[in-house]
Every structure is written in structure tokens, then in C-alpha cells.
């Protein structure tokens, strides 16, 4: 079946089997391997992308369902000139990642989270990323990374990125 969709602002027309998962189209057909697969039950969120601006799990959407729609993946998040998005900066400077496998999904989810709620509480952040599993970090620094980006987006000085010890 022929479909046309925009991925990271580039128009693609592709012939796909109806059962092709959107995540496979992104990874295999378009070679955008920043979007990952971590489970088969729509649990882990590693495959999170933006579909018409909404964060969704691309392992549970058929590629044909994206026909005529616009997809954004992690590869489009930094500026064309290489400058990092506040979330990318936040994850890097607050040690919000270890192995990096969940990170693209976390960042894509967080983009929408901050769009809907520019100044979330810690609790709102935790619930907001509850569809994304991270096995390495224990989440504390991911929360901090998102708070950092929230502050940056709002033009407020983010909290220190130095680790705080008791």
C-alpha cells in the first residue's frame, strides 16, 4: 500500500505492507535508528515519537495509519546548525542518561509534556514520563533534566547541574 508522510519535515512516499509498524518504517525504511524498540507490549516507551505533535508509541501504530501525517523523531530535535534543544542539554548536563537507549523516547515524550505543561511539578513530571521505562538512571536525573528544560524554555535560570549530596 502506498503512503505519503512527512518525517522530520521531509516528505516520503513509500510502499508498505499494511502490517508494517510505524517504528519499523522509521528505523528500517528511513534508517532513522534513534527511535528504539524495547518491548512488545506498548510498555517501555523507547519507540516514542511525535505524530502530528502528539507523543505516541510507534510500535503500536501501523505505518499506514501515519499516511498523510507528520512524524518527528529524535533526529530532528537539535537545530540544523547543531545547537541542542533545551531537553537535550538538560539530559546531558544533568546526567539524565546512562546507556542512552531510552533517551530518545524520553526526550520525545518530554517535548509534548512541556508543551502541554510548561512548568510542571516534580510529581507531574514523574506521571508525565510514566510510559517510558529507564533501567539505568533511577529517574531522579531525568526529572532534573526536564526541570532544567522547563526553566530554560521559560527564560528562568535552571537549578545547578552539579550533583547535590547529603
Amino acid at each position, binding site marked *: 500500500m502506498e503512503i505519503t508522510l512527512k518525517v522530520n519535515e521531509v516528505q516520503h512516499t513509500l510502499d508498505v505492507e499494511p502490517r508494517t509498524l510505524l517504528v519499523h518504517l522509521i528505523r528500517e525504511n528511513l534508517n532513522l535508528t534513534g527511535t*528504539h524498540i524495547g518491548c512488545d507490549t506498548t510498555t517501555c516507551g523507547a519507540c516514542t515519537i511525535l505524530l502530528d505533535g502528539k507523543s505516541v508509541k510507534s510500535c503500536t501504530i501501523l505505518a499506514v495509519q501515519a499516511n498523510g501525517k507528520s512524524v518527528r523523531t529524535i533526529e530532528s530535535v*537539535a537545530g540544523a546548525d547543531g545547537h541542542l534543544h533545551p531537553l537535550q542539554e538538560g539530559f546531558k548536563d544533568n546526567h539524565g*542518561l546512562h546507556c542512552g537507549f531510552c533517551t530518545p523516547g524520553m526526550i520525545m515524550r518530554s517535548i509534548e509534556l512541556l508543551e502541554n505543561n510548561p512548568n510542571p511539578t516534580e510529581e507531574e513530571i514523574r506521571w508525565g514520563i510514566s510510559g517510558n521505562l529507564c533501567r539505568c538512571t533511577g529517574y531522579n536525573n531525568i526529572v532534573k533534566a526536564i526541570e532544567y528544560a522547563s526553566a530554560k524554555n521559560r527564560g528562568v535560570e535552571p537549578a545547578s547541574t552539579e550533583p547535590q*549530596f547529603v
Partner: protein
Amino acid sequence: MIQCKTSKAISGMGHSMKRKEDIRFIQGRGHYVDDIKLDGMLYMDITRSPYAYAKIKNIDISEAMKVPGVVAVITGKDLEKYNLHWMPTIMSDTQMVLPTDTVMYQAQEVAAVIATSRYAARDGREAVKVEYEPMQALVDPFKAMDPSSPVLRTDKPGKTDNHIWHWEAGDKAKTEKVFSEAAVVVKEQMHIPRIHVSSIETCGCVADYDKINNHLTMYMTTQAPHVLRTVFALVAGHVGLTEEKIRVVSPDIGGGFGGKVPVYPGYVIAIAVSFLVGKPVKWIEDRSENLQADSFARDYHITAEMAGTKEGKILATRFKVLADHGYTDAAANPSKYPAGLFSIATGSYDYGTAFVEADAVYTNKPPGGVAYRCSFRVTEAVHAIERMTDRYALEIGKDPAQLRMDNFIKKEDFPWHSPTGWIYDSGDYHAGLQKAMDVVGYADLRKEQVEKRAKGELMGIGISTFTEIVGAGPSKDFDILGIKMFDSAEIRVHPTGKAIARFGTKSQGQGHETTYAQIIAEELGIPAENIQVEEGDTDTAPYGLGTYASRSTPTAGAAAAVAARKLRDKARKIAAYLLEVSEDDLEWEPGKFFVKGAPEKVKTIQELVFAAYTNFPQGMEAGFEATHYYDPPNLTFPSGAYICVVDIDKETGGIHVRRFVAIDDCGHIINPMIVQGQVHGGLTQGIAPAMYEELIYDEAGNILNGTLMDYLVPTAVESPKWETGHVVTPSPHHPIGAKGVGESPTVGSPPAIANAIIDALSPFGITHLDIPITPFKVWKALKEKGAYGK
């Protein structure tokens, strides 16, 4: 405050340098195994057994072969022709690659389907028809030990039972005597359940065999690439694939935690298929396959006993373990230590008598067990001792913090000889616990608890003061399949003063690209930013045993420091030559040598490196490179003092972790930010088995929670806000005084949580609950004690 000897520009030890590897990960440019695409690559999928124990009557591949895109279906009979149907495990046991007649656990590999696409391979997998004759599975390890039970490993000639090995440490007779005379003896039966590392990236590989050159490149998710190259050569050498013809490449790894140490059948099948068809073959597990078939962790049944005085002096401990290994012993332990380092179970306490024994048994469950972010079996040991310490305090009515303070090994007593034979390097347990108590406000919490109890509310405070044992290991005692457990570093400094350093370890998120660079920066004064770190390619990196058991910093980190010091010695010689003074007249400060008393006579490390290529003394070897294989003189013994505070909903059994304070002692800290990150992550992998995770099997050996919908990996909502800090007692025998930290929190935190919950429930006569302690378990315990609804 952590003192730094180097400037921020150099960023040696103690600096919270931002991680060098992150720039690719945050932009989706990490390079994981499933991102690899090679010309003509085929895809493999695996048909698995629905039964835990069954005879294979027939495998019909005819329908599968008709599926468009399917090019081959491989069974055990096919591999048998090449004698590739069996392989060794790391514990020198044996394991089927593909079965020829019997399946031994649910989800065992039965046939491999090779196709031109992932989708076709899956269709083919579904079309393979296997006829089974199910047999009565043996699932309960105690039953499996019963001499009347049927023998599972009939493949082993002469095997008459399901017993794998017996192992012991300590003094049995002396322990029995102390126990028989002790005023107080406490005992609990506990199970540390079967769990799964469940790294977010599953396992997988691309096996790329080049027929013309008889050369295999194996891209794979492995924590130990060099050892696996050797294993592959041992398995496949007889078909001409000898070790110089094998290159193992471990790309970025999406979490390991021990689950990516073993050789899984899928890897071997992929190699065999690539060898036979001459094309690259990719195999990537599904999550459910990963959970259901890859190595589990733990599954220790422990009878734990502690003897002491009425006043609270610990006199002796006795631990008896039954280890359920499933179908084969596929643990990842050093050869001489089939129960790993479980004999660290005497803990942080000063007493001289202990006996530890373990027996291992086969059952119809998947093979294992690997670590789960834990040095070899140390989590099981720590859980046993820390639970029993609280149990003893409860028995004699003494505050568990005070009891610990009264029994700790004193800092002046290190090196300390444990009753099971270990020599603890250093520690200050009193300082750690005191700090944790001060931070959490221990005395006030105990007061609050008294008030809450009077109101009928359930609140608990739990402590764990653990000693880890990591950094295997001294080669005299530690080997994996006969290969001694050293590790390596190779540093090459280019003429312009920038360096590349390669290691035998392999980061899975630990941040080696940053911390190793910082160690070298500390020793040589070359900015860490200018030091490129590489690991994971057996063609380029020096041989090493890999990253697990918190061993990278203790071994490869030490190797980096020693190799850098060799280079500093060379730099000193060149400086003496260039400044025309004797070596003794030179003084070093990070990044330069200068003449004592004449600091203007100076040569920077960059100038000295340049001279090593352009202007070096007659007779000196050119270049600026060094390699070191570090064989540690002893293990390192990180420790920690953790305090957890919980509130329990007495109607639902719901458990809320209100506070968790973790004070760790991992010796000198290389990068505080990374150490803290490791502690955060490790703590969440501590609360996971303490409250959520367990692989559950029914009586027929069917897994009941083989997906992430029911295997409950904590989210950000379940994970508490951790409060972390440290005390520092450097390891006296380690070149940079570091001890390793990646696993301490996973090892140390489950008993703190369990102790807190039991502390809350202890007024009702509840003395122990097995982890994971769920609301249901709490409710049930209250109900059984007649305390529910009261």
C-alpha cells in the same frame, strides 16, 4: 567536598565532568546492534517451546519453507551434523544450542528460521510445526533435590540425581559449637526470588561470516567481548573458525546488568547459519523472549541463622543455600566460586565464626543465574545478613542501629580477616551509619514511630549497612573458564598531545568514555577532553575480561592509572634530557615537569609528548605509548549505610517509601556526578526486586509474567527521590584508591526496604516477608496475624 588535584580544564579525578558519550545518545546517534545493516543481511527468528519439559516427536518445516522470503529452517539435527548442537556454559556446564530430542524449559529455542526480512522470519517461525510429548516438569528445587525425583540431565552419562554442586566456606564444627552454646539464636527461611535484568535493549547480534577470507565478524550485545571471542573459538575451532579469524564487536549497549555476559543459543545459531550460508545474519530478541529465556538472576533459597548474646553481640552466623539453576548452570561466576562471593554473608560485623554452604540443583526452568547489577551472588548474601541483623535486634528488643554500631568492624581493624576467608581492605562503617542517621533524623523518626503506633498507624524504619566485594580479581583465585580475571588498558598519546586509550572492558552506560579519560588526565595532566576512549572491538582493544561485578574501575581503571604512570616516567626522562637536569631534580604537577626551585624551567606534557616523537634522548624508544594488564592484589570492599522510611496503608497494604538515604563508600571518587547517577540507578534496581519484580512459574513450569505488562519494572512514579551522599575510605591497595560503585546500591538497598516494612509490621508478630513485598503480601500477613481491620 571532594578535593581535586587538577584544574577543571584538565578534569582529572573528582570533577563532575559532563559525559563525553552523551552527545551522540541525546541526538539519536547511538549505535546499537539493531542499528547495524549489512548488504545481503538475513534475519533470524526462533521457534520456542511452549512446554517446560517435553520430548520432541517431530519438527515439520515444510510449511515454514513455503513462506515467501524464508531461506532456511535450522534444527538441532542440522547443527548436530557439525557437532554444534551443544555448547559450554561459563560455569563449564553444558547447554543445548538447539535440541535434537528434548526441551528442558519453556521458551527454549527449538528451531531457527532464516529469511530475507524480519517479517518473513516471524511468519516462518509461526509456520514451523513441532509435535511434542509433554512430560511432568520438575519446577520446585526442593523436590528436585529429592532422591526419588526423576533425573533431568539424562544427557550426562552416569548422572543419578539433579544435584549440581556443593560448596562451603567457614568452620562448620566451630559454628555448631557457638550456636549450641549461644543465649539467643534467630532463624528465618527466605527466598531471594528469580528476577530478570530486563535492560531496555534486549540481546541480539549480527553474525557476518566472510567465506572467502574465512573470517567472522560478530557484532553483539556483550559485556565481555574478548572472553566471548575465545568461547566462540573453543566452540567452533573444529570447523576451522579459529580465534584469529574471529572479531567480536560490541557496539553501544542499551544496558547490561549481567544479562549480557552469557553466550545465548541465538548467538551460536546466528554464527552457524552465517557460516553455512555465507551471508550476514541478524538476530534480535523480542522482549518476551528476553524475559522468558535469557539468564535470570538470584533464585536462592536461604536458611539463615544468627547466634548472639542477650545484650546484642553477634557471635556467629550460619547460612544454608539451595540454588535453583534451572536446566543448566549458566551462572557467570569465577570458576572456583560456584556460589559466587556469597561467603561475604558475614557482613560488616566483627565476629569470628561462620559457616556458609550452598547446593545447586537442576529444574525445568531457564538456565542462569547471572548477576542483576550485582557482584557475584553478593546481593543474596547481603540480604541474608542484613535481614538477620534486624531479626536479631527485634528478638532481643534492641534498636537495630545501635546493634549495628555495637558490632561493626572498627576502622582501625582493617585490613580485617573475615571468618570465611576474605580480607576486607578498608572502611569506616561507624562514620557511614552515623552520617545516614544524622541526615535522616533517626532519633526523631523513632519518636514519630512511637506516636504513630499509638494511633494505629504503620510506619517503619529500615537500615542496611552492607559490605560489598567487587573488582575480581586477584588472578591466583579468580578466573572465568580458566582465563585469569585481570583487565587492561592501552594508552597511545599522539605527537600533538592528544590520546586514544583502549580497554578490555565494555561500558553499558557506566560512562567509561568519560571516567577512564579522567583517570588518565589525573595521571598525565592531558585534558580528559583530549583523550578518546575506545572499548568493545577485539581487533583493536587489549584483551580483558569485561565489565560486570563492579570490576571496571578496580581493574581496568587501575590499569589506566598504571599505564599512565609508565608514560609519566618516560616523560620525566625526556624532561630531564630537554631541561638538562637529573630526573631527581624534577617535580611534577598535573600537566608539567619543572625544575625544583626554578619553576620557570618547565616542560608541559604536550611538549614532552611531542619530543617523544621529535627529539628524544639517544637510546630511548620512540613514541609515547603504554599498555598495562592489571592484576589486583585483592578485591575491593565498598560499603554503604542505607536508611529507608516507609508508611503502610493498613487497609490496602500499600507501601509508600517516604525517605531513602544512601551513604556510600566507594573509596576515591573519579566523577561525583557519575557516581551519584550510578547510585540512583542502582537504588531503583534495588526497590525493583524489593517491591515489584519476580519471575513467577506455575507447577507445570509455565511462566506467568513473561512480558513487561506483568514483570513490573518500576517507572518514575514508583521510584523514590533518592538522597545520596558518601564517606571516603580509599582502598589502600588500589592505585587510585577507588573501589567500584555500580552495584552497591542494588546490593544494599533491598534489605533496607524489607527491614523498614518488617519494622512497621513487627508489632503484630511479623518477623519476615520474602521480597518482593507487595501490598497483597502485607495484607495477607496482617490477615494471618489477625491484625487486619484492627
